């Protein structure tokens, strides 16, 4: 009973922590989405100068350096340049840019998997490059990206717990406060935290699955082996 009571009393602060976690995740994903698409388009349609000197080094760097190191670099490194940024802001920059590097790979793969004929056809009816990308390429690429993007969503959501290390009071830090206040209920409280993360990932992935289903192109579904007839499998 004591344990239940403890959870009940800790719930408001855990939920406010959850709200911070969700807010962080939305910022990470949004920054990563917008920048990721731009990077991917640059990788596919941009000049060599852009590709070799800006996009590739950016992607390499943010994919090669551990998330925690990025967080420290942005948070503690900023004071070196005499810029004052909050832990929250540092987290958004570090994790958002990191997600952009990963998301750009997702979008680049999707864009490149669309047949060259689509672009040709769009240009042949008089669309300029921007219109072709906006109306023909991206709508198809984004649909193809949903499954891999669901993966990125789960990773980013869970990695938001690293913001703990620079002092952002997200879900895990709220949990840690309760553990510290009540002396040794670590297993119980962290289990509740784990459960909340699980629910967030689960709900998010379910939502994306519904989205995928809603926007699937009729006659163009990716068939699973089970749906195929024997003849088609040969």
């Amino acid at each position, binding site marked *: 009973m004591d344990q239940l009571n403890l959870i009940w009393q800790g719930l408001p602060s855990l939920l406010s922590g959850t709200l911070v976690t969700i807010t962080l995740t939305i910022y990470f994903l949004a920054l990563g989405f917008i920048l990721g698409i731009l990077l991917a388009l640059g990788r596919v349609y941009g000049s060599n100068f852009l590709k070799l000197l800006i996009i590739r080094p950016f992607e390499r760097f943010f994919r090669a350096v551990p998330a925690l190191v990025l967080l420290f670099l942005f948070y503690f490194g900023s004071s070196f340049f005499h810029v004052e940024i909050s832990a929250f802001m540092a987290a958004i920059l570090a994790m958002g840019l990191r997600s952009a590097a990963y998301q750009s790979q997702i979008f680049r793969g999707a864009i490149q998997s669309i047949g060259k004929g689509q672009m040709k056809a769009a240009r042949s009816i*008089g669309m300029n490059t921007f219109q072709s990308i906006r109306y023909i390429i991206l*709508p198809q690429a984004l649909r193809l990206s949903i499954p891999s993007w669901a993966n990125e969503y789960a990773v980013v959501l869970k990695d938001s717990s690293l913001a703990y290390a620079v002092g952002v009071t997200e879900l895990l830090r709220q949990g840690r406060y309760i553990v510290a206040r009540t002396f040794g209920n670590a297993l119980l409280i962290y289990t509740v935290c784990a459960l909340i993360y699980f629910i967030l990932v689960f709900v998010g992935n379910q939502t994306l699955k519904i989205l995928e289903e809603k926007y699937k192109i009729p006659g163009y579904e990716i068939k699973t082996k089970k749906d195929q007839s024997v003849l088609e499998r040969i």
Partner: protein
Amino acid sequence: MPNVILRAENVYKKYGKLEVLKGISFQVKQGETTVIIGPSGTGKSTLLTCINQLTPPDKGHIWLEDTEITNPNTDINIIRSSIGMVFQHFNLFTHLSVLDNVRIGLLVVKKTPMKEATEISMGKLNEVGLGDKIDAYPAELSGGQQQRVSIARALAMNPKLILFDEPTSALDPELIGEVLNVMTKLAEIGMTMVVVSHEMGFARAVANDIIFMEKGVIVEEGKPDKMFNDSENPRTREFLHKITELYGGKTE
């Protein structure tokens, strides 16, 4: 004397060291159909994409009526919107319904109001016999139906000229007829067309002019009658003989 819609002068195109087009000149008059034939790898498709600048030529000039397409100051998107193109593999926009495939050019490029764009598109889809398929998606259609949608997509822009790049080569034999029928109908109502095709029956019946290309140059050009029965160049005779055996068209 019908006026000239398309005029190409000395068009050159190189891919790396490979010279694909070595000085092509020809013209197409209003309402006429020109069929380009020739062995594969001869530059027929490249010539078509040079016309609408999907692959800009290295040298030479091309005019659409009085506008020089190859002039760098010409707004190529406006030119392209008045030159339709039909591809071998249809290239319909897979994420759009049949109706949207046809009207998206009007909506995005010509900024036509939705109601009018829909009316025009419906008209063109009826013309190609697909008025009942407007809500279908490309992957749900047969190859012949897809190709007819792509013809409707080209027609919707009200083009001065339509380029056909082997429009029936990717189709099952029993689906070729429905596409050729639509093209024949277009020729009858006076659409100007440049067609790369090996359909000799179609060429013989519909073409005003046949161009035989080989190795990047025009070997011979003339009326179908002359080309089929009385061609000057032995190479033309040989090719036409072989291709007629393969694709038929002798018994027209």
